[in-house]
């Protein structure tokens, strides 16, 4: 073989870096275990779907039912496959960021005759090999769906394409970070966090109506634009898929299943401005756009890495340090500065001060605080801002002595009220005292003549329309708080999981263990430091809801609106911090536990993040499932049970009318009161139980500390 064929052969099939990984892959027990678990889960889904599907048929199985079951199996397997790829791809590829440098083989590789392309592609494919092998191993199970029909081979190919594109873009990103020296050992977590936030954030933001493209306007039978009687604005028709569908793998996958509530719009139905390429393609075929875009992006990230690999390795310039110096987050070359005061508990001081003051932690913390508070304030401002109206009443318009009402915007607008005048506010009857507030007149008031006087017979008032209505505000706020909650959990878990392993890696743990510091003192110091680091983060969602509660207090005091509903229930001020602190403490405990047990930071972080995400995700799933059943059954027991799931509690505090519509029925105020008491009581009970669990974990960790550490000593 000579020339180009040999070059191409050595580029991938004969790439020594790839060959080393492929030859080792079959012998690793860990890889085998992960593959078995993956295939076991897929098989489990198939069996479960067949068994539960069969029980409904009671002997009479139609082909239509079988195809439905088959389609359901395919959907569930596709989601599982994508979730695992999205979860595992960062784990397997993130190592590329530092592994070669850590193992000091990077310089050796660069000094060999291997070309840049061989090194970059060898590194990329060797890290993706496991994921690709995992995907291929699942093909036979996916093929089972073909037995019953109902799933086109094209759909299976699309599902695999989305998963593969996700894996490739993750790997290419990791390789680019490694080549351009913007990453260190710590970047691995930021990389992981970034991917999780992107995926989860995309799913949450997809629920925001404003992010769904406008594809038309609703019209009346007469062909005129339909108007919303509440807001007085035109009713817009929006696409079922959002602007994010084409860039989020889960949304792109969902758009392929043909669900009526999540079908991409037809090209012909899009406004002319959105039909042009590539926007038309992006909106109408988000799955194919996702696959093509991410493979193209992978290529775009890989080519500069290939071209500049050796040049970047020779360069002493570091983009990261240059940026940090420009932002004044890092001192000059000498780095000399005044020493800080060291606390009596040096372990806590180290966690809280030196780690928190590190540039990365500083950026994460203040970005989180600014982003979170900025988002909440912007949301509150939008909610608090009202539109103008032509006809309205304002304080001073009504004179109780003469029973006259001046309505702004109606010529000669002073009207007399009688005993029989019907006044409604937001559709509910209210007494005349309400007229001291500022409200929009929803419809021209009806009048009648009594004697020679013209008297108002009915007056329909509504709140001034806001920039965003209460329900949308609740939904956005809930999304924001849940996102912050998830980010806090990830940050706490990462900090805790790296806290001991980093000392093992840096060799400082032995120094500390040879001092009189006891295990209790050490662990407590670590926890105290973590608390000091995390408390400002926990304060962000608590302060965000406090802003809304304060605004509601002022809003509620001013008027006698019987339809007044809190944006956030005030008891959130007690429940939310309790839940956040306890769950964060659990994440910290789990992280520290893994940090003690495992030797390397990467392993400890990945293991604890997986456990914390799995536990919280599982609890959230159970909680929301219980609430869904509650909507049907109206069971108070289910509400009590859902209060044990932290994420569900947050939903019940902020948007209960959606999360538990059965119990929080706006037409039955007494059920709302009962529901609030239930949530308060059971969420505090749950917090108490979780606190006991966390304490037990702490005690066990202190007791086993010496044994766990000594077992690792070599």
């Amino acid at each position, binding site marked *: 073989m000579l020339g180009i064929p040999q070059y191409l052969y050595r580029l991938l099939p004969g790439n020594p870096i790839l060959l080393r990984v492929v030859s080792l892959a079959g012998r690793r027990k860990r890889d085998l275990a992960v593959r078995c678990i993956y295939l076991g889960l897929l098989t489990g889904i198939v069996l479960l779907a067949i068994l539960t599907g069969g029980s409904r048929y009671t002997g009479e199985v139609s082909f239509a039912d079988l195809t439905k079951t088959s389609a359901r199996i395919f959907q569930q397997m596709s989601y599982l496959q994508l979730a695992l790829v999205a979860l595992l791809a960062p784990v397997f590829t993130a190592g590329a960021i530092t592994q070669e440098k850590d193992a000091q083989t990077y310089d050796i590789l660069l000094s060999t005759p291997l070309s840049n392309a061989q090194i970059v592609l060898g590194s990329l494919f060797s890290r993706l090999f496991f994921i690709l092998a995992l995907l291929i191993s699942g093909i036979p199970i996916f093929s089972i769906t073909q037995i019953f029909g109902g799933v086109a081979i094209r759909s299976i190919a699309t599902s695999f394409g989305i998963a593969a594109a996700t894996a490739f873009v993750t790997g290419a990103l990791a390789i680019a970070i490694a080549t351009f020296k913007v990453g260190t050992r710590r970047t691995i977590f930021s990389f992981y966090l970034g991917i999780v936030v992107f995926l989860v954030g995309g799913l949450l933001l997809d629920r925001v109506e404003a992010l769904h493209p406008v594809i038309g306007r609703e019209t009346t039978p007469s062909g005129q634009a339909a108007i919303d009687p509440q807001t007085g604005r035109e009713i817009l028709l929006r696409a079922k898929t959002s602007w994010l569908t084409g860039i989020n793998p889960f949304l792109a996958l969902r758009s392929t299943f043909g669900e009526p509530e999540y079908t991409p719009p037809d090209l012909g139905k899009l406004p002319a401005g959105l039909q042009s390429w590539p926007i038309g393609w992006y909106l109408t075929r988000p799955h194919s756009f996702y696959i093509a875009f991410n493979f193209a992006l992978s290529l775009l990230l890989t080519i500069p890495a290939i071209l500049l690999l050796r040049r970047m390795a020779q360069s002493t310039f570091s983009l990261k340090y240059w940026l940090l110096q420009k932002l004044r987050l890092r001192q000059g070359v*000498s*780095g*000399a*500065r*005044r*020493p*800080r005061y*060291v*606390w*009596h*508990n*040096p*372990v806590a*001081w*180290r966690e809280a001060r*030196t*780690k928190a*003051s*590190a540039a990365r932690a500083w950026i994460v913390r203040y970005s989180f605080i600014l982003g979170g508070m900025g988002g909440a304030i912007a949301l509150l401002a939008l909610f608090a801002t009202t539109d103008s109206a032509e006809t309205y009443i304002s304080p001073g318009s009504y004179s109780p002595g003469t029973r006259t009402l001046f309505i702004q915007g109606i010529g000669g607008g002073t009207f007399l009220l009688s005993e029989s005048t019907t006044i409604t506010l937001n559709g509910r009857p209210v007494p005349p005292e309400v007229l001291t507030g500022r409200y929009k007149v929803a419809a021209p008031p009806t009048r009648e003549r009594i004697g020679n006087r013209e008297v108002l017979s009915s007056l329909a008032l509504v709140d001034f329309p806001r920039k965003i209505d209460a329900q949308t505000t609740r939904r956005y706020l809930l999304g924001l708080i849940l996102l912050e909650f998830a980010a806090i959990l990830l940050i706490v878990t990462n900090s805790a999981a790296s806290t001991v392993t980093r000392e093992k890696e*840096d*060799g*400082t*743990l*032995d*120094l*500390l*263990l*040879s*001092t*009189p*510091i*006891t295990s209790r003192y050490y662990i407590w110091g670590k926890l105290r430091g973590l608390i000091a680091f995390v408390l400002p983060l926990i304060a962000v969602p608590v302060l965000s809801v406090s802003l809304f509660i304060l605004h509601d207090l002022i809003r509620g005091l001013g008027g006698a609106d019987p339809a007044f509903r809190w944006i956030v229930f005030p008891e959130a001020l007690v429940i939310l911090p309790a839940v956040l602190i306890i769950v964060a403490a659990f994440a910290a405990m789990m992280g520290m536990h893994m940090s003690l047990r495992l030797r390397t930071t990467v392993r400890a972080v990945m293991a604890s993040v997986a456990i914390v995400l799995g536990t919280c995700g599982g609890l959230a799933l159970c909680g929301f499932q219980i609430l869904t059943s509650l909507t049907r059954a109206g069971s108070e027991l289910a509400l009590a049970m859902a209060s044990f799931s932290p994420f569900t509690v947050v939903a019940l505090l902020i948007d209960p009318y959606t999360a538990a519509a059965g119990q929080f029925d706006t037409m039955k105020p007494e059920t709302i009161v009962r529901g609030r008491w239930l949530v308060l009581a059971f969420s505090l009970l749950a917090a108490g139980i979780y606190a006991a669990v966390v304490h037990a974990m702490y005690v066990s960790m202190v007791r086993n500390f010496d044994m766990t550490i*000594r077992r690792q*000593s*070599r």
Partner: protein
Amino acid sequence: MGVMIKTVNLTKRYGSLVALSNLNLEIHEGDCFGFIGPNGAGKTTTIRILATLLQPTWGEARIADYVIGYQSRQIRPLIGYVPDYFGAYEDMVVQEYLEFFAAAYNINGAHRAKVVRDVLELTDLAYKRDAPVDGLSRGMKQRLSIARVLVHDPKVLLLDEPAGNLDPRARIEMRELLKELRRMGKTILISSHILPELQDLCNTVGIIERGELIYSGPWTEIVRRAGGGVVVHVGVAARQDLAGALLAGDPNIVNVTHSNGYMEVTLRDGLSDYSFIPEKLIGAGFKLTLLKEEEANLETAFMRLTKGVVQ
């Protein structure tokens, strides 16, 4: 002087690998004990057990009569452990680093400030108090490690390769610092591969190989025991080969080897008087240019006593 460090049948196994086998050691208060042996001989394992970081599989180790494993809490304030690497915290300057460890020994307030100032002076690092730890040179890091273990004024110093990878100047500075600590009455257990320096610093040594202690005692004694015959360097103005043959025929001489311009003459075991050599050579008409007894040292003793076998 009482016994400060004592081990009795100290054994450590890692699975099937025996890292230490029945180590019996006694180090008296104020001694400087040099621990020598090939890589993987068990030096670091011994030091880590004495630093309360490892539990022995069998046997007992005591420091100041406290038993390691049972009374480790009482032992830790008495010892200062310097591992064979520098444990650096990121984002800490020199003074913070020392204050951090002082706080770990529960030294706080004004006393802590004074102690840190004193050890910085002692280790000649006062001018670096504001410098970040991870930016220090290797020699300075080692000095800072010594400063770290001095903040609580321990009785025993356990030093694992403190001069490893240091440049000549840093090594000499480290040796002078350790001599100063010995003068202060500290009991020092030091492992090192630089034997001439140990000979200069220590009064007792222990040689360990494959986890077994081959010798423990004064270094002068080990040199004497390992010595064999006295080696004399002999030079003649001309005809060195003939002179060599003449000496080789003497029954008091065991071996004659020719080196670069002179001969190395090994006397019979037990014989220390070599006055017969010049008499014999001058009597045979040779002009003598060199006559010098080779200085017996730790290096030669170590080479003779150990086999260089690694586990």
